[in-house]
């Protein structure tokens, strides 16, 4: 059976890539996420969140980046957080979670959060490798790309901006 190391060695894992400049703030990702995880359209309980900065007309999607060495996983005193070996996602077991919230303190990014009504924490689990937010986004502001290549599009963008003036031409 392939394990996480195997998947990683073959370069099969993917990461979410957010592109704020493409986000229109429509909330469809929050709706898709909440329906997948909560069985109701409920942006308030989405694992991915859109942050609006209206006076700059900027919308920023934000969720867990699935740290390789995850603070939340290390901090959990009851080992309720484990790695999905296939996707690299850090998964919370609702059965094991005791709602102590230590992970929410440990996470530097705030992307794992407690829910009062269930007494458990929740976070993005990459939907088992087929993220709903990616599928529903109307502007391709959320992509799911090879984890080794999240910078490729940006590099290409900058590469395209280079011109002859920046060339070092041998005489």
């Amino acid at each position: 059976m392939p394990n996480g190391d195997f998947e990683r060695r073959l370069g099969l894992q993917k990461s979410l890539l957010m592109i704020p400049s493409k986000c229109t703030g429509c909330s469809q990702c929050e709706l898709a996420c909440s329906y997948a995880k909560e069985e109701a359209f409920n942006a308030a309980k989405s694992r991915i969140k859109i942050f609006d900065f209206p006076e700059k007309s900027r919308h920023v999607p934000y969720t867990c980046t699935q740290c390789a060495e995850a603070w939340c996983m290390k901090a959990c005193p009851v080992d309720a957080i484990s790695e999905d070996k296939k996707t690299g996602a850090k998964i919370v077991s609702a059965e094991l979670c005791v709602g102590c919230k230590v992970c929410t303190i440990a996470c530097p990014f705030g992307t794992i959060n407690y829910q009062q009504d269930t007494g458990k924490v929740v976070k993005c689990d990459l939907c088992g490798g087929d993220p709903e937010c990616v599928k529903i986004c109307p502007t391709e502001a959320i992509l799911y790309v090879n984890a080794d290549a999240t910078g490729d599009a940006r590099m290409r963008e900058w590469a395209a901006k280079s011109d002859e003036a920046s060339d070092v031409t041998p005489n």
Partner: protein
Amino acid sequence: MGWTQKILRVNLTKGTCESEPLNMQWANDYLGSRGLATKYFVEETDPKVDPLSPDNKMIFATGPLTGTASPTSGRWTVVCKGALTGAIACSNSGGFFGAEMKNAGWDMIIFEGKSAKPVYLTIENDQAELHDAGDLWGKSVWECESELLKRHGEEGRVASIGQAGESGCLYAAVVNDMDRAAGRSGVGTVMGSKNLKAVFSRGTVGVKVKDPMGFMKATGAAKKILAENAVTGEGLPTYGTQVLMNVINELGALPSHNAADVQFDGAAQIGGEAMHAKRETDGKANLVSNAACFGCPISCQRRSQMDPNHFTVKDREKYHIVSGGLEYEAAWALGAATGVSDLETLTFCNFICNEYGMDPITLGSTVAAAMELYKVGAITDKETGGVSLTFDSPQDLATICEMTGKGEGFGKEIAMGSKRLCEKYGRPELSMTVKGQEFPAYDPRGIQGMGLTYATSNRGACHLRSYTVASEVLGIPEKTDPHVTEGKAGLVKAFQDATALVDASGTCIFTTFALSMEDIAPQINAACEGDWSTDRCMEVGERIWNMERVYNNAAGFTGADDTLPQRLLKDAAKTGPAEGLVNKLDEMLPEYYSLRGWSADGVPTSETLGRLGL
């Protein structure tokens, strides 16, 4: 499912907030939002009620698709008797407030009575509470909303009125999310008359649908069509509704100088393309980006930032932000109608409308009427208190718009709307209104169907009751000749019924540039209990339309009110493709009544009412 099946009833006289179950029989017959709220309204209020009396009610309503993943699911509606018109008022808005209210677990909020002192309402899921608004009264929409978010949580959403709604401007808007508005007919005036300043909403309950898999399939199919359509997938995201300015001008259907002309020399300077162009003054474009309302894949909103050195905003930092920019109707009313072709001035006046809470269509058209009164000498500096009101003048426009928002000087008279203003100064024919409401940015001499649209609109002249421009100009669903009247009666009826249904669903009418009822009905069917076929949806639309008509007739309107300003019927278009044409309403109206199943004087027959269960 779809519906939360809960209504909040707020009695402002008593200061009480009570929950009650939704009348599901009515929900099945009127669907939601515009339809269902109007049903509650007509059942609970006297049609003769003074719009500004405590006995007028005001309903905030969502539809069964509001707050779901349906594309454009952010729409919500304000229903009351209109302060401007005395007819049924039904103004809908986008943004995020409606979805937040639905997510808090409420299909509707019914406001009744009048508070003894200014109050605002907070809703946090099932908790509803009235608070003293003494310190918020007198504040703008922008100040009030910022303060309430600070006070009750940045995650919430706010709908409020500005100073215009407090001071009795008859076309005050209810503004949510800073620059989205239930704009027309004076619904904000009614809110102000109840001493209700704002509603803050925060919801974490969630919205469920009947058949989740079917719903995601139906909404996914609709999204695909919207993305691939030239108007909803490309034109609207890029240029917003402002894509129309040059198109309508070239068609000779852009009313200018209070509809004396049908084309405007300055159109190219105030349209969508101009918003993209870099300014000579600071090298930046007026348009910063587009943006979406809740759930909307189209994203037609304009976000604009003014030149900070423009004369209207120099050293006034609050106007240097990125805010809701010009949409087509506002750019037309503030610009083409008044003859002002300075994009920055129009952007400023639009900001003023959002800040003080006013309908830019009625404001712009009323200023245009005042400019004509001034031009012909029916008003002079004596009446205006020394304020010049000259066509084409950016300075005059900016000054009078701000005075109107503040309720100062001659602005108080502009705040009455053009019908009352022109009557007061003895020139009623200069008011470009139907049933007291100013018509928008399409001249019925150049687009004949829009004449019948304006004349028969249940909320006074309006483009959003049957947007035949889609067919007559854009060829959606099929092209008709804008200069002929034949077939327009049927077109208007079909558009009116379909629009009523879309409004009742909680989604945006802009979807219908791409979607047909065959794409919309399956979404409703997957969300709501029962069987929602295309035929049933169209019947619900027709039922809503007739219900509104019956209410207006009971309120005192008759077939004689289904008319247009004389200028559109008598003075031929002077230029452009429609040169020589007037609107031939008399060729369309009798056929329209007949198709509707109404008598020759515009009263629904008992047979029609019986067929629709009214």
